[in-house]
């Protein structure tokens, strides 16, 4: 049953990814990206990676959707049409993907009990046996993240925080005055219609 659910969710994931690539409408692609990270988070839950699923849901579906929308409000909603297909780029992508897949062949199979992480004499055994008395929380992942590699987590959080501030300052948080543009005055000032081709004409420029 678990295998069935995982396989179905991963199939959804692949279908959604192809849909995102094919779609030329960037707003639609942003919406589908939210869907993508929902499916990914569901798959993580089924695979027992609960903390990753939390992060994926909060970052992928929540924050990054909003950041993408903030970026889209400065640009057009339609992907630029390219005149040619770049076969060199395709070649590079295929080669890189093949190399990555070749790299995964060396990794231990999912859930194997004799994988190096499980059999290392100091790490896993010590975490499992002594993290309860040394740190406290019943969840071993929590004690590893917050205590054994606490400085690492602190640095990670700092980087993410700095990136968030940088993105916010790039997007601009200035308040617009209400008298700058009132959309309710006349039908000429209708909000941009994302469904028709002329959506970009009545878009606000800064």
């Amino acid at each position, binding site marked *: 049953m678990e295998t069935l659910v995982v396989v179905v969710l991963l199939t959804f994931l692949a279908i959604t990814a192809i849909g995102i690539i094919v779609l030329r409408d960037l707003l639609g692609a942003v919406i589908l990206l939210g869907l993508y990270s929902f499916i990914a988070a569901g798959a993580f839950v089924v695979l027992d990676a609960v903390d990753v699923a939390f992060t994926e849901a909060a970052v992928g579906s929540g924050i990054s959707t909003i950041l993408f929308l903030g970026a889209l409000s400065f640009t057009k909603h339609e992907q630029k049409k390219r005149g040619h297909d770049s076969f060199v780029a395709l070649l590079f992508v295929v080669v890189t993907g093949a190399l990555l897949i070749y790299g995964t062949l060396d990794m231990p199979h999912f859930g194997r009990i004799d994988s190096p992480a499980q059999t290392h004499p100091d790490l896993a055994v010590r975490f499992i046996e002594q993290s309860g008395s040394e740190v406290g929380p019943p969840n071993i992942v929590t004690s590893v993240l917050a205590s054994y590699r606490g400085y690492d987590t602190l640095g990670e959080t700092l980087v993410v925080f700095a990136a968030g501030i940088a993105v916010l300052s790039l997007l601009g948080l200035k308040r617009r005055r209400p008298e700058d543009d009132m959309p*309710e*005055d006349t*039908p000429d000032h*209708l*909000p941009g*219609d*994302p*469904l*028709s081709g002329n959506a970009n004409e009545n878009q606000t420029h800064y």
Partner: protein
Amino acid sequence: MIDWIVWSVSWVLMLIGCVFVVSGAVGLIRMPDLYTRLHAASLTDTGGAIVISLVLIIQSVFVFGSAMAAIKVLLILFFTLFTSPTASHALAKTALLCGQVPTDGHGNPILESPEQATLLARSRPADYRSGQDGERARQEAAERRRHDDNAGDQS
């Protein structure tokens, strides 16, 4: 005895929930335009969530014996009951505001133009600026529909 009752009630409710959920998805595929799809999806979403959450509450109390799980399911149900209709309402209103014209039973648009849909979306009972326009658009649309109906009857 109580085990049997819990088991059968859970099964019946779960089947009802599955029917709700799947029929909502079928409606989402088969309905002709956005507003009918919205209707199908949002109604059955909420209905299915209520019924399936009931099953989960029954199971967590009687089978798993965990009150915490029941409270969490109740919280999920609470949030779903608040957020799902709100999201549906916002979706319908924004679609109207962006000029999605609803259609009638035969696939004909009810309003003349996307601008009328926008005006209709902007009209509110206690409006502050453009409500009169929206109210007028709505009355004009209703009159035109009545006129068209009469013309259709006479012909």
